[in-house]
């Protein structure tokens, strides 16, 4: 009886002390399986890791309350219908109000089309289609810059290398890859170069030798490969097998491990990846080095370069909730996101616009970088021209 009384007293005391500690569910909709899982699964992992870090550091403080994050993740397979269903499940069944992840543009676009009508905040990661942040959706922000922002910088870089005749092989039926190439072409043309052919492949294609044979016959100065990691890796490998000995540029954001599943390091040697300045160990900041180490330890695999977009979302959400002082008023949290300075914990190197992480369109910008495969690693070689303020102004002019 004495023991029971003591236990009850302790429980009551403990309960009083912890009365203000609550759980906040946050959702993730991302490609956890299928071809796009190379981007989606690392993003979901990154959110989970950030949530655990935030919890370990005391959670999110809102007034007298402290919220511990609980992540509910669903597999949207990068499919628009699956993503809509996943988000509806998060909103209607799980009661989630903050949804993160979103690696791929088709699925993200489908959710973006209805999220403005929901009592929720949507934080987009790797999906690069420009129109996601031109729709004036007040409760949506995105950590990754649009593809054409990077494509223009890439076009300038390739032109400066002296290439005049560039052959393109890409997943050109995917909007954001096509917009990358369009912006690339505009800058290349301005410098007196041209795209001599645009060859396409499907996201499930793995044999690109017919297209590469055609490209080889046209004798280009360089080739530009835009697409998911796996088909891109096959293209790099098959280009070597076909004896195509010209510089290879790409826009893929794959990790070393992902490429080495398909191609050898020798076959990859010298390949350029022209993309936002994402995570690579050799170019990472202190945050980036810690992120890489923690992620690798936790999941037993190195993080993909684009995965920190989702990690950074989580810290941006934490800061916005604390700034808004509420988890109930999603409009206030969405507004706070647009006023947010870049959080200290983020991994990517953001370029603030007017001192804020997200511009008026809800778009964040990183610098763009030229990475080259050297002896088994992606090595950061140089920054590419990245005028975030000018692009932000341009983005605001698009309907």
């Amino acid at each position: 009886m004495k023991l029971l009384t003591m236990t009850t007293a302790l429980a009551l005391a403990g309960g009083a002390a912890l009365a203000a500690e609550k759980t906040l569910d946050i959702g993730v909709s991302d490609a956890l399986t299928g071809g796009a899982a190379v981007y989606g699964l690392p993003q979901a992992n990154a959110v989970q890791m950030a949530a655990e870090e935030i919890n370990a550091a005391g959670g999110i403080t809102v007034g007298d309350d402290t919220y511990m994050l609980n992540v509910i993740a669903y597999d949207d397979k990068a499919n628009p219908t699956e993503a809509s269903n996943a988000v509806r499940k998060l909103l209607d069944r799980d009661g989630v109000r903050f949804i993160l992840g979103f690696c791929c543009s088709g699925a993200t676009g489908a959710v973006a089309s209805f999220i403005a009508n929901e009592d929720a905040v949507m934080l987009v990661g790797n999906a690069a289609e420009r129109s996601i942040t031109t729709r004036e959706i007040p409760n949506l922000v995105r950590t990754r810059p649009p593809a054409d922002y990077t494509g223009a910088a890439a076009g300038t870089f390739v032109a400066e290398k002296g290439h005049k005749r560039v052959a393109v092989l890409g997943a050109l039926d995917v909007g954001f890859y096509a917009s990358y190439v369009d912006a690339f072409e505009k800058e290349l043309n301005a410098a007196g170069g041209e795209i001599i052919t645009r060859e396409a492949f499907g996201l499930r294609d793995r044999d690109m030798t017919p297209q590469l044979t055609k490209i080889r016959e046209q004798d280009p100065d360089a080739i530009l490969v835009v697409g998911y990691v796996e088909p891109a890796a096959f293209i790099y490998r098959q280009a070597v097998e076909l004896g195509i000995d010209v510089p290879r540029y790409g826009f893929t954001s794959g990790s070393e491990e992902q490429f080495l599943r398909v191609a050898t390091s020798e076959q990859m040697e010298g390949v350029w990846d022209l993309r936002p300045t994402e995570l690579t160990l050799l170019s990472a900041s202190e945050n980036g080095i810690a992120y890489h180490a923690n992620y690798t330890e936790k999941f037993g695999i190195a993080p993909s370069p684009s995965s920190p977009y989702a990690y950074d979302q989580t810290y941006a959400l934490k800061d916005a909730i604390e700034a808004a002082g509420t988890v109930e008023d999603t409009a206030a949290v969405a507004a706070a996101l647009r006023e947010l300075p870049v959080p200290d914990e983020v991994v990517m190197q953001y370029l603030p616009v007017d001192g804020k992480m997200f511009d008026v369109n809800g778009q964040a910008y990183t610098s763009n970088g030229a990475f080259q495969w050297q002896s088994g690693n992606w090595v950061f070689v140089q920054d590419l021209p990245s005028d975030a303020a000018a692009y932000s102004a341009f983005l605001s002019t698009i309907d």
Partner: protein
Amino acid sequence: MIEILQQIINGMAIGGVYVLIALGLTTVFGILGIAHFAHGSVSMFGGYLTFFLVSAQGLPLAAAIVIALATGFVLGLLIELLAYRPVRNASHINAFIVALGLTMMVEGLNLEFFGHEQVVIPTDFDRVFNLGGVTIPELRLYVILAAALLIAAMTLFVEKTKTGQAIRAVAENRDAAILMGVNVNTIPLVVFAISTMLGVCAGIMVGALFAIAPGIGEGLVIKGFAVLILGGLGSIPGAVIGGLVLGITEALAAGFLSSAYKDVIAFVVMITVLLVRPQGLMGKA
């Protein structure tokens, strides 16, 4: 000219894979009248198993292939005994449903055992041969040669051995074969064992040349049936010619017309052939 030759070489490797898939399907269909939809998933199982043995167990590729083929042999026997034999004398729709169920089951097992990630079977065949401007990667050359060898072995087996003659006899006239003393219970076992081993070979080739992932088996079996129809149902020479025609047409279409429509163009060729020869290229009218 070099470009055309290069595209033909490009198409022959994938055409060889189509041939092996179609050979397995055509023998099963020719003898037993079963549309064995699970064949693609079974061949992916062979590819996954080889990858597992090489990557996770550290076996040499040749040893992994031998084990995968032996497993394929046993798997073929089990498929016939446990899945198709019970419905052998029932209506065709029963075998059809069994085939669909088996496809889902094998796909599920592949997912359970090997996961959902794309895998590529590692090989050391990195050399590239150059013949007058036409380049042939070592791996593709071996795939083409292995496919040719298997086709020749299959043809010799069916044409020159007693078991092969028995298979042909059952295909021609099952009742007459029984009267001639052919053991018609053993023949389906042999057919499924051989068919599955050919499928495993195709899976290994796809896994080494390209990649194995969930869903790829379905695409492969669709191409296999297309080859079957193009070449003529139940015809071994038809499967060989049909597979090569489909593979080379895809490569030429992607290279000279549009890569976006290579599958469409390949199937348009198939439909055109069928308009002229409804029985397929080598089928009997």
